[in-house]
């Protein structure tokens, strides 16, 4: 996985397309034809633009996006690790391979408040299962000497797909948004 590739320069047409598809395809027989109609273009053009975004790495995954909690995976633990800088890549990759893990990111420390530099998301049916999975990860990746802590989510205030095309002149809250409208795994 390439780290920190620069932000892709997008055409106006691509931005308009992303704005529509980031909320999901219409569930109809010819979804790209329907999107094309809204963009005043052709079905083939929509498909080609999406293929290009997949090929250049802008789209990481393309398919069905499920919501873990509604599937019975009610516990999600953000497990944060204080890893020596020269081992973050190795250990982040090891943890990222577990089937119960959906994210493995390096982030900056913020000393003295925040010593942790590796963030992983572990899902389970309950807290005990998450803790068990973390134990397996510690064993398998050899993390016995690495300090970590699990932050369980206790309330979900908002969960939805990222909105990348918000205008640059946004000025604060525009009213309360209904929670749980659409959603996925936290970036």
């Amino acid at each position, binding site marked *: 996985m390439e780290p920190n590739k620069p932000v892709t320069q997008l055409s106006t047409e691509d931005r308009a397309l992303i704005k529509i598809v980031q909320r999901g395809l219409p569930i109809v027989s010819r979804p790209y034809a329907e999107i094309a109609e809204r963009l005043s273009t052709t079905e083939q053009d929509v498909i080609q633009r999406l293929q290009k975004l997949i090929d250049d790495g802008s789209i990481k995954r393309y*398919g069905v996006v499920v*919501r873990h909690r509604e599937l019975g995976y009610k516990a999600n633990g953000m497990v944060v690790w204080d890893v020596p800088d020269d081992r973050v890549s190795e250990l982040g990759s090891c943890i990222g391979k577990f089937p119960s893990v959906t994210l493995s990111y390096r*982030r900056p420390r913020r000393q003295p408040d925040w010593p942790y530099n590796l963030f992983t998301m572990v899902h389970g049916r309950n807290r005990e299962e998450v803790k068990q999975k973390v134990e397996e990860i510690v064993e398998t990746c050899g993390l016995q000497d690495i300090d970590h802590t699990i932050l369980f989510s206790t309330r979900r*205030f908002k*969960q939805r797909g990222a909105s*990348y095309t918000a205008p640059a002149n*946004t000025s604060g*809250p525009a009213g309360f948004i209904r929670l749980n409208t659409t959603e996925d795994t936290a970036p």
Partner: protein
Amino acid sequence: MTDTTTSFSTLEKHLLNDFQHDLPLSATPFADMAEQLGVSENEVLSTVRKLQDEGVISRVGPVFTPNRIGVSTLAAMSIPAEELACVARIVSAFPEVNHNYERDHEFNLWFVVTASSEEHLEIVLQEIEQHAEYPLMSLPMLEDYFIDLGFKLQWA
């Protein structure tokens, strides 16, 4: 806790599990899924719609690579318990905020902020601090070690 995964039909389980990545970009994706599963396109369409209405499927479509078509950061705040719900509503009201969770830690409010540019992101972070009246710790992603193949469901 009840295990909701056991109540799905065989078709629902396949729709939830088999198409999380590499959904082909054909003009008729749902007909393709139907053919692979040996059911009609209408069955796939109605079942996907039902699962989406129930909130089990969030959407069908792209998951964008972080920080490629926009910029984002993970933000954390430490808020007194009695003010948390109020501050969380202020934070959630920003359209740039998604995934806003309470977590059991001294830093008890965690959310992702996404914007079209670094400048836009900075402005939003400042506005959140002003409106919430609490400082914010920003933890942008530096490197991604996760190959996203979706989430393998383990049916009980």
